Every structure is written in C-alpha cells, then in structure tokens.
C-alpha cells in the first residue's frame, strides 16, 4: 500500500474498523447489484427473436426494479413518414390491460417525445395526481383503469439512435426512486441494442421466408413454359416437323443449350426454395453404395469425355449400405463431379473414392485442378458464392450447386467439406452416418473389475 493510505489518522481504531466494515458492506452490495445486472443482460441476450427477448425481460428485471407490469414500445414510421410509438409487448400481473400490443400513437407532441429528447427516464409516483394536472392524457386514463399507480418510463437508445421505450408500472404509489433510474441506466444501452438486434433478426427471418415463397412461385411458373420450349426445340432438332438446313440446325443447337441451362437454373431455384422452407421430402431406403458409386462414375464419365477427363473409382474395401434417398444423393455426386469437371484442365483424372470407419461413410471427389484457396473454403457452400477460379472451358454456373449439395447432405444427417487433394487439386468429402439399422455396433461392455 502507498504511504498515504497507511498514515495514522489519529482516530479511534474502533471507528476505523467500523468504517472498513461499512466500505466492505457497500462493496458487497455493489457486487451483488453488478451480478444482478449481468444476469439480466445475459438472460435477455439469450433470445434471438424479439418475442423471445421480450419474454425473458419480465422475469429478468425482478431482482433489480420493482413492478407489477412491464411494457415495451418501439418507434416506427407510419405510411406518411410520421414517427409512431407502437406497443410491442406487455406482461402484467394485473388481469385487465387497456394498452396492449398493437396500440400506437404519434410521437410528436407526446410526453414521450420529451423523454426521448432529454434521454432521461421519468418517474411518476402518483398517477392520480398526474391525471389532475394532465386531464387530457389518454394513456394515463387507461393505465389508471388497469390499477397502475406509479410508473417509471425509460427511453431505449441504441448507439445514439432512439429505438423505443420500456415502461415499468406498479400498483403501489411512490414505488420508484432515483436509485432505480441509476440502476436501469447501467444496462439501458445494452437492452436497447439487444432489442434492436432481435427486431432486425425477426424482420430478417420474415423477409427470408417471403424470399423463399417468391422464389418457389417464380420458378414454378417458369418451369412449364420452359418445358414446352425445350420440348418443341427437341422435336425440331430431330426434324420431326420437317428437314432443317445446316444453319437452322446450328440455331436449334444454341436454343437447346440455352433452354437447358435455364431449366437447370429453375430446378436449382426450386430445390433451394423447397429446402429452405422445409418442404424437402427425402425418400430414404437402404442404398448399396458400391453399385451406386460405380453407376455414378460411369454416367458422369460419359460427360467428362468431352474434356478428355477420366473418372477413376477407388473403393479399397466394400462400403456398407446407408439409409439415403438415392435420387438426392445422386444429385449430390452429380453436382460435385460436374463441379470438378468444370475446374479441371483437359486430360486429367477425377477420383471418386469411398471409405468407411465405425461411424461414418466417406465419399470424396478429387480433381487435378487448381484447388480451392483455404480462405474461400468456408463460404464456398453459401448460395451464389463463387470462388476465384474460373471454369476451364467457359462453363456457366448458377452458384447454387454447392449450396444444394450441402443442404442435401445435411438433410441426410451428414456433412460436407473441401480440402486439398494429394497433388494440389480440390477434394470434396461427403460424410454420411452409417446405417444404424444394418450395421450397428454392439454397445461397449463395462470393464469388469
């Protein structure tokens, strides 16, 4: 300790001892208060959606501020751009409630506007007296009807921007003290941030669902006309409707290519929409992976021939069967091999390999292309993300293939990742849980002492 603190004061040691006890009690109180505040912020930060956060608030504040009800109102703009205060949520021990969620009033000219501009919470400890001074205040009339007698109104300001208000109300007059305001002020900023974050998150979820619905409808309405177009192009190319000259054949070939690409994109979009809104139905059945992978290597091998690429199948040991949707898993392997072909130089080899351990079956697709830079690997599976590499034969991509792969693998209870193949190419590995029904390991025996 520095000299000054240890200098004798000339006072009675007993007085000194008492002062120390007081300081220690005060510190203890302060610690308890801080702990309570931390608990409050932890609890309300648990929820992601606004409703979850609000539901935590009612119980969380109990140890630090007295109340019989809490309400939260958020600021929003109406159609004319006016700032409105809209009651978002209210929880009460009282039965009746006249100002529940949905109640909205303009901010301008209200007493709340003053609270917001000063940033200072307002205590009204006698609402009946307050009504005598402000006989026109509708909100005061309403909460008095609900039995509320004193109130603490706090502004919510997130990083300098007003977000709304939190109202603590008590059925007992003279409930609120400056100490409550001081306590609240310590977490006011965090509370406002959490509420704003959860409101934005909730809005994001709503918009995402809207996007999925829109995507599904748009893609569905495009698919039928595209199908007709493709069908007629097919008929014309086969000269079913009369002979075509060379130039016409060339035009038809371009049209077939373009309609094929559009159909591919529409199918991908429909898949994404179905997966994201939980409409994907897997038809799982025991699948013989040895035969399945051989078939995949064969059919994709025909496509790879166009770039003189060979597809090698590597199955060192027979694979166990897995419970999988054969068509969807086929789509996964198709996408991975098509992707490998896209980024492989001519005259190279793509390896389709399978292996198994006690819990997982691994299927990997490795190529001899440039590989995926480490920093791009994680976001490669996000929709519309493309890596820095470019296709070697100017192939097009929707940017949806790998995200569909990941979603389909996850729907099977599996996972997919990318790393570097021996020799420097890209290696995509799909891991699927072993079929519990056919291959379950017996539980480990307890060692006998």
């Amino acid at each position, binding site marked *: 300790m520095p000299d000054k603190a240890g200098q004798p004061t000339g006072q009675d040691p007993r007085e000194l001892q008492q002062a120390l006890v007081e300081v220690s009690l005060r510190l203890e109180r302060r610690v308890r208060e801080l702990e309570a505040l931390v608990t409050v912020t932890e609890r309300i930060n648990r929820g992601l959606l606004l409703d979850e956060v609000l539901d935590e608030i009612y119980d969380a504040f109990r140890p630090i501020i007295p109340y019989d009800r809490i309400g939260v109102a958020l600021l929003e703009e109406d159609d004319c751009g006016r700032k409105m205060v809209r009651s978002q949520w209210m929880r009460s021990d009282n039965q009746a409630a006249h100002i529940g969620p949905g109640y909205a009033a303009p901010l301008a000219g209200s007493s709340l506007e003053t609270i917001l501009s000063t940033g200072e919470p307002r205590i009204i400890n006698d609402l009946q007296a307050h009504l005598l001074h402000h006989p026109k205040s509708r909100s005061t009339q309403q909460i008095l009807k609900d039995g509320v007698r004193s109130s603490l109104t706090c502004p919510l300001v997130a990083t300098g921007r007003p977000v709304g208000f939190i109202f603590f109300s008590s059925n007992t007059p003279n409930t609120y003290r400056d100490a409550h305001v001081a306590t609240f002020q310590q977490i006011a900023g965090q509370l406002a941030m959490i509420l704003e974050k959860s409101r934005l998150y909730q809005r994001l979820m709503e918009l995402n669902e809207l996007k999925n619905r829109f995507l599904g409808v748009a893609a569905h309405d495009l698919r*039928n006309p595209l199908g007709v177009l493709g069908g007629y192009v097919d008929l014309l190319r086969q000269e079913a409707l009369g002979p075509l000259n060379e130039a016409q054949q060339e035009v038809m070939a371009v049209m077939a290519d373009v309609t094929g690409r559009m159909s591919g994109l529409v199918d991908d979009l429909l898949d994404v929409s179905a997966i994201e809104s939980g409409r994907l139905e897997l038809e799982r059945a025991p699948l013989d992976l040895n035969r399945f992978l051989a078939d995949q290597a064969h059919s994709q091998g025909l496509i790879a021939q166009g770039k003189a690429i060979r597809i090698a199948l590597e199955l060192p040991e027979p694979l166990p069967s897995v419970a999988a949707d054969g068509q969807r898993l086929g789509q996964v392997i198709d996408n991975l091999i098509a992707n490998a072909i896209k980024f492989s130089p001519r005259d190279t080899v793509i390896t389709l390999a399978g292996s198994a351990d006690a819990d997982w079956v691994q299927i990997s697709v490795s190529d001899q292309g440039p590989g995926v830079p480490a920093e791009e690997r994680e976001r490669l599976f996000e929709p519309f993300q493309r890596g820095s590499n470019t296709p070697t034969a100017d192939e097009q991509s929707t940017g949806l293939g790998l995200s569909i792969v990941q979603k389909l693998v996850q729907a099977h209870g599996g996972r997919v990742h990318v790393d570097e193949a021996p020799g420097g190419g890209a290696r995509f590995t799909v891991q699927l849980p072993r079929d519990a029904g056919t291959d379950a390991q017996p539980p480990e025996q307890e060692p006998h002492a």
Partner: protein
Amino acid sequence: MTTQKARPDRVLVVDDFQPMRSLLSTMLRQLGFEYIDQAHNGRSALERFESRKQTLVFLDISMPDMTGLEVLRALRGMEGGDHAFVIMQTGDATRDNVLEAKELGVGGFIAKPYNMQKVKELVGAYLKRTQ
C-alpha cells in the same frame, strides 16, 4: 423421324397449361395418333371421357379445382374407365400422391419437361398392353 401410319386409338390429353397440351399433341401425332382430345381441367376431362371413351389418357397431377388424382379416381368409377391406360405427370407429386396413383392403377409416370423419347417409351408400353 418419319410420321408413322395412322392409329385408330383415341387419346385424351389433360393439362391446365395450353402450350403443354399442344406440345404433347404434336408429339403424339408424330407417333401416329390422329384422334387426340384435349381438356384443360378435371371436369371437362371427365365430360370428354364420358362421350368418347379414350383408351390412352395423359393426366397432369397438379391442376386447380380437381387434381389429377381426383380425376383418376372418378375416371376409374366410370363406364370403360377401368380399362383406360393412364399416364400420370408427376412433376410436383409427393410420395403419397404417387403411391395413391399406383393403387388406382396407372400405366406409367412421366415427369416434365416432356421429350419425344419419354413419350415414345410410354406409348410403347400402352401398345404392348393393347396388342
């Protein structure tokens, strides 16, 4: 491809999207069918079947008002309806839809987009049965 010899069989094409009916009818004409009726919904499909008793029916499963399955169920209860060779278009069908269609007895399933090869295969199955 050359147009084949005319067949006497009557075909019914049911789809709520007119260009799709036209495409399928063109393909069927290429395969030699001359008598092709079209219907844009379930009710008119059943009316057309009532009067003409087509032996081959292409039926879209997702249509407003009456679904393809409802049409198939009604058709099976009509005179001559249990003999019709029905090919079901199941692009958006759920697994349950397909199972129910199988129970009601269908000659085959086809997914959009249609191409000549698929239509030809299914028509082949129909001809094999009727021979």
